[in-house]
Protein backbone atom coordinates (compact mmCIF):
# COMPACT_ATOMS: atom_id res chain seq x y z
CA UNK A 1 0.00 0.00 0.00
CA UNK A 2 2.58 2.54 1.05
CA UNK A 3 4.67 1.99 -2.06
CA UNK A 4 1.80 3.14 -4.32
CA UNK A 5 3.33 4.64 -7.43
CA UNK A 6 1.72 8.05 -8.05
CA UNK A 7 3.61 8.47 -11.35
CA UNK A 8 0.68 7.30 -13.51
CA UNK A 9 -1.63 9.80 -11.74
CA UNK A 10 0.54 12.82 -12.53
CA UNK A 11 1.15 11.58 -16.05
CA UNK A 12 -2.57 11.13 -16.64
CA UNK A 13 -3.41 14.61 -15.33
CA UNK A 14 -0.67 16.11 -17.50
CA UNK A 15 -1.90 14.21 -20.56
CA UNK A 16 -5.52 15.27 -20.00
CA UNK A 17 -4.52 18.88 -19.33
CA UNK A 18 -2.33 19.23 -22.42
CA UNK A 19 -4.88 17.42 -24.59
CA UNK A 20 -7.78 19.66 -23.52
CA UNK A 21 -5.75 22.84 -23.90
CA UNK A 22 -4.74 21.92 -27.46
CA UNK A 23 -8.25 20.69 -28.29
CA UNK A 24 -9.81 23.97 -27.18
CA UNK A 25 -7.40 25.82 -29.48
CA UNK A 26 -8.13 23.62 -32.48
CA UNK A 27 -11.74 22.82 -31.60
CA UNK A 28 -12.84 26.48 -31.36
CA UNK A 29 -12.32 27.37 -35.04
CA UNK A 30 -13.60 23.95 -36.14
CA UNK A 31 -16.75 24.22 -33.99
CA UNK A 32 -17.23 27.84 -35.12
CA UNK A 33 -17.00 26.82 -38.74
CA UNK A 34 -19.41 23.91 -38.24
CA UNK A 35 -21.87 26.21 -36.44
CA UNK A 36 -21.88 28.87 -39.17
CA UNK A 37 -21.06 27.14 -42.46
CA UNK A 38 -23.65 26.55 -45.15
CA UNK A 39 -21.45 24.23 -47.19
CA UNK A 40 -22.86 20.94 -48.41
CA UNK A 41 -19.94 18.94 -47.01
CA UNK A 42 -20.91 19.90 -43.44
CA UNK A 43 -22.50 16.49 -42.66
CA UNK A 44 -19.33 14.83 -43.88
CA UNK A 45 -17.12 16.85 -41.54
CA UNK A 46 -19.58 16.42 -38.66
CA UNK A 47 -19.55 12.65 -39.18
CA UNK A 48 -15.75 12.61 -39.25
CA UNK A 49 -15.66 14.61 -36.02
CA UNK A 50 -18.10 12.24 -34.33
CA UNK A 51 -16.38 9.05 -35.51
CA UNK A 52 -14.31 8.57 -32.31
CA UNK A 53 -17.61 8.32 -30.40
CA UNK A 54 -18.61 5.09 -32.10
CA UNK A 55 -15.38 3.38 -33.17
CA UNK A 56 -13.82 0.83 -30.83
CA UNK A 57 -10.67 2.39 -29.33
CA UNK A 58 -8.70 -0.50 -30.78
CA UNK A 59 -9.67 0.53 -34.31
CA UNK A 60 -8.57 4.12 -33.69
CA UNK A 61 -5.46 2.85 -31.93
CA UNK A 62 -4.62 0.50 -34.77
CA UNK A 63 -4.82 3.15 -37.49
CA UNK A 64 -2.97 5.68 -35.35
CA UNK A 65 -0.24 3.08 -34.81
CA UNK A 66 0.03 2.68 -38.58
CA UNK A 67 0.18 6.48 -39.05
CA UNK A 68 2.56 7.06 -36.11
CA UNK A 69 5.04 4.27 -36.98
CA UNK A 70 8.56 5.57 -37.72
CA UNK A 71 7.92 4.85 -41.42
CA UNK A 72 4.29 6.05 -41.22
CA UNK A 73 2.70 9.11 -42.83
CA UNK A 74 2.88 11.13 -39.58
CA UNK A 75 5.60 9.23 -37.76
CA UNK A 76 8.25 9.69 -40.46
CA UNK A 77 8.17 13.53 -40.68
CA UNK A 78 7.79 13.75 -36.87
CA UNK A 79 10.91 11.64 -36.44
CA UNK A 80 12.76 13.83 -38.93
CA UNK A 81 11.68 17.07 -37.21
CA UNK A 82 12.07 16.10 -33.55
CA UNK A 83 14.36 13.09 -33.58
CA UNK A 84 11.75 11.15 -31.60
CA UNK A 85 9.20 8.54 -32.54
CA UNK A 86 5.49 9.24 -32.13
CA UNK A 87 4.76 5.71 -31.02
CA UNK A 88 5.40 4.89 -27.36
CA UNK A 89 5.96 8.59 -26.53
CA UNK A 90 4.08 11.24 -24.58
CA UNK A 91 3.69 13.39 -27.73
CA UNK A 92 2.12 10.44 -29.52
CA UNK A 93 -0.28 9.96 -26.60
CA UNK A 94 -1.30 13.62 -26.72
CA UNK A 95 -1.98 13.42 -30.46
CA UNK A 96 -3.92 10.18 -30.06
CA UNK A 97 -5.93 11.57 -27.11
CA UNK A 98 -6.79 14.66 -29.13
CA UNK A 99 -8.33 12.54 -31.83
CA UNK A 100 -10.02 10.26 -29.30
CA UNK A 101 -11.54 13.15 -27.30
CA UNK A 102 -12.22 15.50 -30.23
CA UNK A 103 -16.02 15.07 -30.30
CA UNK A 104 -16.25 15.72 -26.56
CA UNK A 105 -14.80 19.18 -27.07
CA UNK A 106 -16.11 20.11 -30.53
CA UNK A 107 -19.74 19.12 -30.02
CA UNK A 108 -20.46 21.23 -26.89
CA UNK A 109 -18.67 24.18 -28.48
CA UNK A 110 -20.61 23.83 -31.74
CA UNK A 111 -23.86 23.58 -29.78
CA UNK A 112 -22.99 26.69 -27.78
CA UNK A 113 -22.07 28.72 -30.87
CA UNK A 114 -25.27 27.63 -32.60
CA UNK A 115 -27.27 28.68 -29.54
CA UNK A 116 -25.63 32.12 -29.59
CA UNK A 117 -26.54 32.43 -33.27
CA UNK A 118 -25.85 35.27 -35.68
CA UNK A 119 -28.02 37.84 -33.89
CA UNK A 120 -25.54 39.07 -31.25
CA UNK A 121 -22.72 39.02 -33.81
CA UNK A 122 -24.68 41.24 -36.19
CA UNK A 123 -25.51 43.53 -33.28
CA UNK A 124 -21.80 43.76 -32.42
CA UNK A 125 -20.86 44.41 -36.07
CA UNK A 126 -23.23 47.35 -36.49
CA UNK A 127 -21.77 48.83 -33.29
CA UNK A 128 -18.36 48.82 -34.97
CA UNK A 129 -16.87 45.54 -33.73
CA UNK A 130 -14.56 43.69 -36.12
CA UNK A 131 -15.33 39.97 -36.54
CA UNK A 132 -12.49 38.83 -34.25
CA UNK A 133 -13.44 41.48 -31.67
CA UNK A 134 -17.08 40.33 -31.88
CA UNK A 135 -15.95 36.76 -31.31
CA UNK A 136 -13.96 37.51 -28.17
CA UNK A 137 -16.24 40.20 -26.74
CA UNK A 138 -19.65 38.69 -27.54
CA UNK A 139 -19.68 35.16 -28.93
CA UNK A 140 -17.24 33.48 -26.55
CA UNK A 141 -18.61 35.01 -23.31
CA UNK A 142 -22.11 33.99 -24.41
CA UNK A 143 -20.79 30.48 -25.18
CA UNK A 144 -19.08 30.22 -21.78
CA UNK A 145 -21.13 27.24 -20.67
CA UNK A 146 -20.13 25.41 -23.83
CA UNK A 147 -16.47 26.03 -22.96
CA UNK A 148 -16.91 24.72 -19.42
CA UNK A 149 -18.72 21.61 -20.65
CA UNK A 150 -16.18 21.01 -23.42
CA UNK A 151 -13.20 21.36 -21.06
CA UNK A 152 -14.60 19.10 -18.37
CA UNK A 153 -15.90 16.39 -20.70
CA UNK A 154 -12.69 16.44 -22.77
CA UNK A 155 -10.60 16.21 -19.61
CA UNK A 156 -12.65 13.43 -18.04
CA UNK A 157 -12.83 11.43 -21.25
CA UNK A 158 -9.06 11.61 -21.71
CA UNK A 159 -8.59 10.40 -18.12
CA UNK A 160 -10.55 7.28 -18.87
CA UNK A 161 -9.02 6.22 -22.18
CA UNK A 162 -7.41 2.82 -22.29
CA UNK A 163 -7.48 1.05 -25.63
CA UNK A 164 -5.97 3.80 -27.71
CA UNK A 165 -3.18 4.37 -25.18
CA UNK A 166 -2.39 0.69 -25.01
CA UNK A 167 -2.16 0.43 -28.81
CA UNK A 168 -0.19 3.63 -29.42
CA UNK A 169 1.71 4.20 -26.19
CA UNK A 170 2.23 0.84 -24.61
CA UNK A 171 3.15 0.81 -20.93
CA UNK A 172 6.31 2.81 -20.30
CA UNK A 173 6.56 4.21 -16.75
CA UNK A 174 6.79 8.02 -16.73
CA UNK A 175 6.05 8.28 -20.45
CA UNK A 176 2.94 6.35 -21.36
CA UNK A 177 1.82 4.48 -18.24
CA UNK A 178 -1.42 6.34 -17.43
CA UNK A 179 -3.85 5.40 -14.64
CA UNK A 180 -6.00 3.07 -16.72
CA UNK A 181 -2.94 1.14 -17.90
CA UNK A 182 -1.54 0.99 -14.37
CA UNK A 183 -4.83 -0.42 -13.09
CA UNK A 184 -4.80 -3.03 -15.82
CA UNK A 185 -1.27 -4.04 -14.87
CA UNK A 186 -2.04 -4.23 -11.13
CA UNK A 187 -4.95 -6.51 -11.87
CA UNK A 188 -2.84 -8.68 -14.16
CA UNK A 189 -0.27 -9.08 -11.37
CA UNK A 190 -3.07 -9.68 -8.81
CA UNK A 191 -2.29 -6.47 -6.84
CA UNK A 192 -5.97 -5.89 -6.12
CA UNK A 193 -5.39 -3.43 -3.28
CA UNK A 194 -3.49 -1.02 -5.52
CA UNK A 195 -5.96 -1.58 -8.36
CA UNK A 196 -8.74 -0.63 -5.92
CA UNK A 197 -7.00 2.56 -4.86
CA UNK A 198 -6.45 3.77 -8.39
CA UNK A 199 -9.88 2.67 -9.62
CA UNK A 200 -11.74 4.21 -6.70
CA UNK A 201 -9.70 7.38 -7.11
CA UNK A 202 -10.59 7.64 -10.80
CA UNK A 203 -14.24 6.84 -10.07
CA UNK A 204 -14.54 9.50 -7.39
CA UNK A 205 -12.68 12.08 -9.43
CA UNK A 206 -14.84 11.48 -12.52
CA UNK A 207 -18.00 11.63 -10.43
CA UNK A 208 -16.90 14.85 -8.75
CA UNK A 209 -16.10 16.39 -12.13
CA UNK A 210 -19.52 15.51 -13.54
CA UNK A 211 -21.27 16.89 -10.45
CA UNK A 212 -19.30 20.08 -10.99
CA UNK A 213 -20.43 20.30 -14.63
CA UNK A 214 -24.08 19.86 -13.77
CA UNK A 215 -23.83 22.28 -10.86
CA UNK A 216 -22.18 24.90 -13.07
CA UNK A 217 -24.84 24.43 -15.71
CA UNK A 218 -27.45 25.27 -13.12
CA UNK A 219 -25.59 28.26 -11.76
CA UNK A 220 -24.86 29.77 -15.16
CA UNK A 221 -27.80 29.06 -17.44
CA UNK A 222 -27.25 29.47 -21.15
CA UNK A 223 -27.49 33.15 -22.04
CA UNK A 224 -30.39 33.62 -24.37
CA UNK A 225 -29.78 36.71 -26.45
Amino acid at each position, binding site marked *: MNDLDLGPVWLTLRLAGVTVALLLLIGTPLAWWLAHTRTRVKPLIEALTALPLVLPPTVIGFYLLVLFAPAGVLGEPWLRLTGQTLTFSFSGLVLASMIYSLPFVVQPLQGAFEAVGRGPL*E*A*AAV*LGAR*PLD*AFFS*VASPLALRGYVTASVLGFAHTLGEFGVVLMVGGNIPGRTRVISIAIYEQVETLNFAQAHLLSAGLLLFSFAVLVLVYALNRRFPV*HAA
Partner: protein
Amino acid sequence: MSALAFDLTVDHGAFALRTCETLPLTGITAVMGASGSGKSTLLRALAGLEPAARGRVELGGVVLQDTAAGVCLPPHRRGIGYVFQDARLFAHRNVSGNLRYALARARPGAAAPNFDDVVAALDLAPLLGRRVGGLSGGERQRVAIARALLANPRLLLLDEPLAALDLKRKAELLPYIRQLPERFGIPLIYVSHAVEEVAQLANEVLILSAGQVVARGEVHAVLQQPEAEAVSGHFDAGVVLDGRVDGQVPEYALTEIAVAGQRMSVPRIDAAVGSPVRLRVRARDVAIALQRVEGISIRNQLAARVLRITRDSTSANAEVLLDLGQDPGGAHLRARVTREAVTTLGLAETQRVWALVKSVSFEPPQ
Protein backbone atom coordinates in the same frame (compact mmCIF):
# COMPACT_ATOMS: atom_id res chain seq x y z
CA MET B 1 -27.67 66.95 -44.25
CA SER B 2 -26.30 64.01 -46.15
CA ALA B 3 -28.10 61.99 -48.77
CA LEU B 4 -28.42 58.25 -49.07
CA ALA B 5 -28.36 56.84 -52.58
CA PHE B 6 -28.88 53.18 -53.20
CA ASP B 7 -29.48 50.90 -56.13
CA LEU B 8 -29.84 47.47 -54.60
CA THR B 9 -30.90 44.03 -55.68
CA VAL B 10 -31.30 41.21 -53.19
CA ASP B 11 -32.29 37.90 -54.70
CA HIS B 12 -33.67 35.33 -52.24
CA GLY B 13 -35.13 32.94 -54.78
CA ALA B 14 -38.88 33.30 -54.33
CA PHE B 15 -38.47 36.90 -53.12
CA ALA B 16 -36.43 39.63 -54.76
CA LEU B 17 -35.85 43.21 -53.66
CA ARG B 18 -35.16 45.77 -56.39
CA THR B 19 -34.86 49.38 -55.30
CA CYS B 20 -33.17 52.48 -56.62
CA GLU B 21 -33.71 55.67 -54.63
CA THR B 22 -31.95 58.77 -53.43
CA LEU B 23 -33.21 59.92 -50.05
CA PRO B 24 -32.46 63.39 -48.70
CA LEU B 25 -31.76 62.39 -45.13
CA THR B 26 -33.45 64.93 -42.94
CA GLY B 27 -35.21 63.93 -39.78
CA ILE B 28 -37.08 60.67 -39.97
CA THR B 29 -37.70 58.78 -43.20
CA ALA B 30 -40.22 55.98 -42.86
CA VAL B 31 -40.21 52.77 -44.86
CA MET B 32 -43.67 51.26 -44.84
CA GLY B 33 -44.96 48.01 -46.20
CA ALA B 34 -46.87 44.88 -45.35
CA SER B 35 -45.07 41.88 -43.84
CA GLY B 36 -42.80 40.30 -46.41
CA SER B 37 -42.64 43.41 -48.59
CA GLY B 38 -38.86 43.63 -48.14
CA LYS B 39 -38.58 46.39 -45.53
CA SER B 40 -36.16 44.52 -43.29
CA THR B 41 -34.24 43.15 -46.25
CA LEU B 42 -33.69 46.69 -47.53
CA LEU B 43 -32.48 47.86 -44.12
CA ARG B 44 -30.18 44.86 -43.70
CA ALA B 45 -28.75 45.40 -47.18
CA LEU B 46 -28.01 49.05 -46.37
CA ALA B 47 -26.22 48.03 -43.17
CA GLY B 48 -24.18 45.37 -44.98
CA LEU B 49 -25.84 42.46 -43.18
CA GLU B 50 -27.28 40.90 -46.33
CA PRO B 51 -24.60 38.87 -48.13
CA ALA B 52 -26.85 38.45 -51.19
CA ALA B 53 -27.13 42.23 -51.75
CA ARG B 54 -25.77 43.45 -55.11
CA GLY B 55 -25.50 47.00 -56.34
CA ARG B 56 -24.54 50.37 -54.97
CA VAL B 57 -24.91 52.22 -51.66
CA GLU B 58 -23.61 55.72 -51.16
CA LEU B 59 -24.01 57.68 -47.93
CA GLY B 60 -23.08 61.36 -47.84
CA GLY B 61 -20.72 60.99 -50.77
CA VAL B 62 -18.95 57.91 -49.37
CA VAL B 63 -19.36 54.71 -51.39
CA LEU B 64 -20.21 51.89 -49.00
CA GLN B 65 -20.89 49.30 -51.64
CA ASP B 66 -20.34 49.07 -55.37
CA THR B 67 -20.54 45.49 -56.49
CA ALA B 68 -19.48 46.36 -60.04
CA ALA B 69 -16.26 47.91 -58.72
CA GLY B 70 -15.73 45.12 -56.20
CA VAL B 71 -16.34 47.41 -53.20
CA CYS B 72 -18.36 46.16 -50.24
CA LEU B 73 -17.61 47.57 -46.80
CA PRO B 74 -18.41 45.16 -43.96
CA PRO B 75 -21.07 46.29 -41.44
CA HIS B 76 -18.55 47.40 -38.82
CA ARG B 77 -17.02 49.91 -41.26
CA ARG B 78 -20.20 51.44 -42.69
CA GLY B 79 -20.97 53.84 -39.86
CA ILE B 80 -24.62 52.84 -40.01
CA GLY B 81 -26.38 52.07 -36.75
CA TYR B 82 -29.12 49.47 -36.51
CA VAL B 83 -31.82 48.89 -33.91
CA PHE B 84 -33.26 45.41 -34.28
CA GLN B 85 -36.86 44.46 -33.68
CA ASP B 86 -35.71 42.12 -30.88
CA ALA B 87 -33.24 44.67 -29.39
CA ARG B 88 -30.39 42.13 -29.31
CA LEU B 89 -28.86 43.39 -26.09
CA PHE B 90 -25.81 41.48 -24.90
CA ALA B 91 -26.98 39.18 -22.12
CA HIS B 92 -23.53 38.91 -20.53
CA ARG B 93 -23.37 42.64 -19.86
CA ASN B 94 -25.68 44.85 -17.84
CA VAL B 95 -27.32 47.97 -19.27
CA SER B 96 -24.31 50.16 -18.63
CA GLY B 97 -22.03 47.47 -20.08
CA ASN B 98 -24.10 47.34 -23.25
CA LEU B 99 -23.85 51.10 -23.65
CA ARG B 100 -20.12 51.15 -22.98
CA TYR B 101 -19.60 48.36 -25.50
CA ALA B 102 -20.77 50.78 -28.20
CA LEU B 103 -18.90 53.72 -26.71
CA ALA B 104 -15.60 51.79 -26.81
CA ARG B 105 -16.08 51.10 -30.52
CA ALA B 106 -17.64 54.42 -31.52
CA ARG B 107 -16.82 55.89 -34.92
CA PRO B 108 -14.37 58.70 -34.34
CA GLY B 109 -15.93 62.10 -34.85
CA ALA B 110 -16.08 65.45 -33.13
CA ALA B 111 -19.86 65.46 -32.79
CA ALA B 112 -20.09 62.03 -31.17
CA PRO B 113 -23.06 61.77 -28.79
CA ASN B 114 -22.04 62.15 -25.19
CA PHE B 115 -22.76 59.23 -22.80
CA ASP B 116 -24.65 61.34 -20.27
CA ASP B 117 -26.70 63.10 -22.97
CA VAL B 118 -27.80 59.80 -24.48
CA VAL B 119 -28.64 58.34 -21.07
CA ALA B 120 -30.68 61.46 -20.29
CA ALA B 121 -32.42 61.52 -23.68
CA LEU B 122 -33.69 57.96 -23.21
CA ASP B 123 -34.25 58.14 -19.44
CA LEU B 124 -31.85 55.30 -18.73
CA ALA B 125 -30.21 56.56 -15.54
CA PRO B 126 -32.35 54.34 -13.25
CA LEU B 127 -31.61 51.29 -15.40
CA LEU B 128 -27.82 51.52 -15.77
CA GLY B 129 -26.98 48.88 -13.17
CA ARG B 130 -29.72 46.46 -14.20
CA ARG B 131 -29.17 43.11 -15.93
CA VAL B 132 -30.73 43.14 -19.39
CA GLY B 133 -32.69 39.94 -18.71
CA GLY B 134 -35.00 41.76 -16.29
CA LEU B 135 -35.92 44.68 -18.55
CA SER B 136 -39.37 45.18 -20.05
CA GLY B 137 -39.81 45.31 -23.83
CA GLY B 138 -39.94 49.10 -23.91
CA GLU B 139 -36.87 49.41 -21.69
CA ARG B 140 -34.94 46.99 -23.87
CA GLN B 141 -35.65 49.08 -26.96
CA ARG B 142 -34.64 52.29 -25.20
CA VAL B 143 -31.32 50.67 -24.26
CA ALA B 144 -30.90 49.36 -27.81
CA ILE B 145 -31.51 52.83 -29.27
CA ALA B 146 -29.08 54.44 -26.80
CA ARG B 147 -26.46 51.80 -27.57
CA ALA B 148 -26.84 52.41 -31.31
CA LEU B 149 -26.49 56.19 -30.82
CA LEU B 150 -23.32 55.83 -28.75
CA ALA B 151 -21.55 54.11 -31.65
CA ASN B 152 -21.85 57.53 -33.33
CA PRO B 153 -23.41 56.37 -36.61
CA ARG B 154 -23.93 58.66 -39.59
CA LEU B 155 -27.35 57.15 -40.12
CA LEU B 156 -29.51 55.12 -37.75
CA LEU B 157 -31.80 52.38 -39.03
CA LEU B 158 -34.70 51.24 -36.85
CA ASP B 159 -36.32 47.97 -37.85
CA GLU B 160 -39.83 47.94 -36.36
CA PRO B 161 -38.51 48.70 -32.87
CA LEU B 162 -42.04 48.92 -31.46
CA ALA B 163 -43.49 45.85 -33.12
CA ALA B 164 -43.19 43.68 -30.03
CA LEU B 165 -44.75 46.24 -27.69
CA ASP B 166 -48.35 46.82 -26.64
CA LEU B 167 -50.18 50.03 -27.59
CA LYS B 168 -49.42 51.85 -24.37
CA ARG B 169 -45.68 51.12 -24.49
CA LYS B 170 -45.60 52.14 -28.15
CA ALA B 171 -47.14 55.47 -27.30
CA GLU B 172 -44.54 55.93 -24.53
CA LEU B 173 -41.61 55.24 -26.82
CA LEU B 174 -42.62 57.37 -29.81
CA PRO B 175 -41.65 60.75 -28.25
CA TYR B 176 -38.17 59.35 -27.44
CA ILE B 177 -37.64 58.42 -31.08
CA ARG B 178 -39.14 61.61 -32.51
CA GLN B 179 -36.61 63.88 -30.75
CA LEU B 180 -33.50 61.95 -31.85
CA PRO B 181 -32.66 63.55 -35.23
CA GLU B 182 -32.72 67.07 -33.87
CA ARG B 183 -31.11 66.30 -30.53
CA PHE B 184 -28.21 64.23 -31.89
CA GLY B 185 -28.03 65.38 -35.50
CA ILE B 186 -28.47 61.84 -36.79
CA PRO B 187 -30.96 61.05 -39.57
CA LEU B 188 -33.22 58.05 -39.00
CA ILE B 189 -34.75 55.50 -41.31
CA TYR B 190 -37.70 53.96 -39.53
CA VAL B 191 -39.29 50.75 -40.76
CA SER B 192 -42.86 50.00 -39.76
CA HIS B 193 -46.10 48.56 -41.02
CA ALA B 194 -48.07 50.71 -38.57
CA VAL B 195 -49.54 53.83 -40.18
CA GLU B 196 -50.05 55.43 -36.76
CA GLU B 197 -46.34 55.33 -35.98
CA VAL B 198 -45.35 56.61 -39.40
CA ALA B 199 -47.89 59.44 -39.18
CA GLN B 200 -46.46 60.48 -35.82
CA LEU B 201 -42.78 60.32 -36.77
CA ALA B 202 -41.94 60.69 -40.40
CA ASN B 203 -41.28 63.59 -42.73
CA GLU B 204 -40.68 61.46 -45.80
CA VAL B 205 -42.31 58.10 -46.50
CA LEU B 206 -41.39 55.30 -48.83
CA ILE B 207 -43.80 52.43 -49.38
CA LEU B 208 -42.54 49.00 -50.38
CA SER B 209 -44.60 46.25 -51.89
CA ALA B 210 -43.25 42.89 -53.10
CA GLY B 211 -39.69 44.18 -53.00
CA GLN B 212 -40.30 47.40 -54.96
CA VAL B 213 -40.89 51.02 -54.02
CA VAL B 214 -44.50 51.77 -55.02
CA ALA B 215 -44.92 55.22 -53.48
CA ARG B 216 -42.66 57.87 -52.07
CA GLY B 217 -42.96 61.43 -50.88
CA GLU B 218 -43.96 63.77 -48.11
CA VAL B 219 -45.85 62.04 -45.29
CA HIS B 220 -49.29 63.70 -45.66
CA ALA B 221 -49.36 63.11 -49.39
CA VAL B 222 -48.16 59.53 -49.30
CA LEU B 223 -50.45 58.44 -46.51
CA GLN B 224 -53.45 59.47 -48.61
CA GLN B 225 -52.39 57.38 -51.58
CA PRO B 226 -54.00 54.02 -52.25
CA GLU B 227 -50.60 52.34 -51.70
CA ALA B 228 -50.69 53.46 -48.06
CA GLU B 229 -54.19 52.14 -47.76
CA ALA B 230 -52.95 48.77 -49.00
CA VAL B 231 -50.61 48.70 -45.98
CA SER B 232 -52.97 50.04 -43.33
CA GLY B 233 -55.95 48.17 -44.71
CA HIS B 234 -59.03 49.92 -46.09
CA PHE B 235 -60.72 49.78 -42.70
CA ASP B 236 -58.13 52.02 -41.02
CA ALA B 237 -57.53 54.43 -43.90
CA GLY B 238 -57.46 58.09 -43.03
CA VAL B 239 -55.53 61.34 -43.12
CA VAL B 240 -52.87 63.07 -41.04
CA LEU B 241 -53.61 66.56 -39.75
CA ASP B 242 -50.92 68.95 -38.55
CA GLY B 243 -51.97 71.16 -35.69
CA ARG B 244 -50.77 73.07 -32.67
CA VAL B 245 -51.67 72.75 -29.03
CA ASP B 246 -54.01 75.62 -28.29
CA GLY B 247 -54.82 74.96 -24.69
CA GLN B 248 -55.35 72.34 -22.00
CA VAL B 249 -58.59 71.53 -20.21
CA PRO B 250 -57.27 69.68 -17.15
CA GLU B 251 -60.71 69.37 -15.64
CA TYR B 252 -61.79 67.01 -18.44
CA ALA B 253 -58.34 65.71 -19.40
CA LEU B 254 -58.75 67.22 -22.85
CA THR B 255 -56.37 69.12 -25.10
CA GLU B 256 -57.48 71.80 -27.53
CA ILE B 257 -55.78 71.68 -30.91
CA ALA B 258 -55.79 74.35 -33.59
CA VAL B 259 -56.07 72.78 -37.04
CA ALA B 260 -56.48 74.74 -40.26
CA GLY B 261 -57.85 77.76 -38.40
CA GLN B 262 -60.40 75.65 -36.51
CA ARG B 263 -60.41 73.97 -33.12
CA MET B 264 -60.56 70.34 -32.15
CA SER B 265 -60.55 68.75 -28.78
CA VAL B 266 -58.87 65.39 -28.18
CA PRO B 267 -57.91 63.26 -25.18
CA ARG B 268 -55.08 64.86 -23.26
CA ILE B 269 -51.69 65.27 -25.00
CA ASP B 270 -48.75 66.11 -22.76
CA ALA B 271 -47.34 69.04 -24.68
CA ALA B 272 -46.92 72.76 -24.09
CA VAL B 273 -49.24 75.28 -25.69
CA GLY B 274 -47.94 76.09 -29.15
CA SER B 275 -46.11 72.82 -29.74
CA PRO B 276 -46.87 71.01 -33.00
CA VAL B 277 -48.89 67.80 -32.92
CA ARG B 278 -50.04 65.36 -35.54
CA LEU B 279 -53.47 63.79 -35.48
CA ARG B 280 -54.39 60.84 -37.57
CA VAL B 281 -58.09 60.81 -38.33
CA ARG B 282 -59.54 57.64 -39.76
CA ALA B 283 -62.15 58.00 -42.48
CA ARG B 284 -64.51 55.74 -40.59
CA ASP B 285 -64.49 58.10 -37.60
CA VAL B 286 -65.74 61.11 -39.58
CA ALA B 287 -69.43 61.85 -40.14
CA ILE B 288 -70.99 64.61 -42.25
CA ALA B 289 -73.81 67.03 -41.38
CA LEU B 290 -75.39 69.70 -43.59
CA GLN B 291 -75.46 72.24 -40.76
CA ARG B 292 -73.93 72.60 -37.35
CA VAL B 293 -75.61 70.13 -35.01
CA GLU B 294 -76.83 71.11 -31.55
CA GLY B 295 -77.56 68.67 -28.77
CA ILE B 296 -75.05 66.05 -29.81
CA SER B 297 -72.17 64.50 -27.88
CA ILE B 298 -69.66 64.87 -30.69
CA ARG B 299 -67.36 67.76 -29.71
CA ASN B 300 -65.49 68.33 -32.95
CA GLN B 301 -67.49 70.06 -35.64
CA LEU B 302 -65.34 71.42 -38.43
CA ALA B 303 -66.50 73.60 -41.29
CA ALA B 304 -65.52 71.89 -44.53
CA ARG B 305 -66.09 71.86 -48.23
CA VAL B 306 -66.66 68.71 -50.30
CA LEU B 307 -63.80 68.22 -52.73
CA ARG B 308 -64.56 64.82 -54.18
CA ILE B 309 -66.96 61.93 -53.68
CA THR B 310 -65.79 58.42 -54.53
CA ARG B 311 -68.53 55.85 -54.95
CA ASP B 312 -68.27 52.15 -55.64
CA SER B 313 -71.57 50.67 -56.80
CA THR B 314 -70.71 47.26 -55.33
CA SER B 315 -70.14 48.66 -51.83
CA ALA B 316 -72.42 50.21 -49.27
CA ASN B 317 -69.82 52.90 -48.57
CA ALA B 318 -68.70 56.09 -50.21
CA GLU B 319 -65.61 58.15 -49.44
CA VAL B 320 -65.93 61.90 -49.23
CA LEU B 321 -62.79 64.01 -49.40
CA LEU B 322 -63.22 67.26 -47.47
CA ASP B 323 -61.24 70.48 -47.47
CA LEU B 324 -60.92 72.10 -44.04
CA GLY B 325 -59.06 75.29 -44.82
CA GLN B 326 -59.81 78.54 -46.49
CA ASP B 327 -56.80 78.16 -48.73
CA PRO B 328 -56.88 75.45 -51.39
CA GLY B 329 -54.36 72.61 -51.01
CA GLY B 330 -54.62 72.85 -47.22
CA ALA B 331 -55.71 70.29 -44.69
CA HIS B 332 -57.99 67.50 -45.86
CA LEU B 333 -60.25 65.06 -44.10
CA ARG B 334 -61.70 61.85 -45.39
CA ALA B 335 -65.14 60.75 -44.36
CA ARG B 336 -66.53 57.29 -44.92
CA VAL B 337 -70.34 57.36 -45.07
CA THR B 338 -72.91 55.18 -46.76
CA ARG B 339 -73.76 55.77 -50.43
CA GLU B 340 -77.32 56.02 -49.32
CA ALA B 341 -76.41 58.94 -47.03
CA VAL B 342 -74.65 60.74 -49.88
CA THR B 343 -77.77 60.47 -52.00
CA THR B 344 -80.23 61.37 -49.25
CA LEU B 345 -78.23 64.41 -48.10
CA GLY B 346 -77.69 65.38 -51.70
CA LEU B 347 -73.96 65.83 -51.22
CA ALA B 348 -72.14 67.34 -54.15
CA GLU B 349 -68.70 68.72 -54.85
CA THR B 350 -67.88 72.26 -53.57
CA GLN B 351 -70.83 72.00 -51.16
CA ARG B 352 -70.28 73.46 -47.67
CA VAL B 353 -70.80 70.88 -44.90
CA TRP B 354 -69.76 70.13 -41.30
CA ALA B 355 -67.39 67.29 -40.52
CA LEU B 356 -68.07 65.59 -37.20
CA VAL B 357 -65.24 63.73 -35.41
CA LYS B 358 -65.67 62.04 -32.04
CA SER B 359 -62.92 63.11 -29.65
CA VAL B 360 -62.56 59.60 -28.29
CA SER B 361 -61.81 58.17 -31.73
CA PHE B 362 -58.18 59.27 -31.49
CA GLU B 363 -55.50 56.79 -30.65
CA PRO B 364 -54.22 57.01 -27.07
CA PRO B 365 -52.14 60.17 -27.29
CA GLN B 366 -48.37 59.92 -27.25
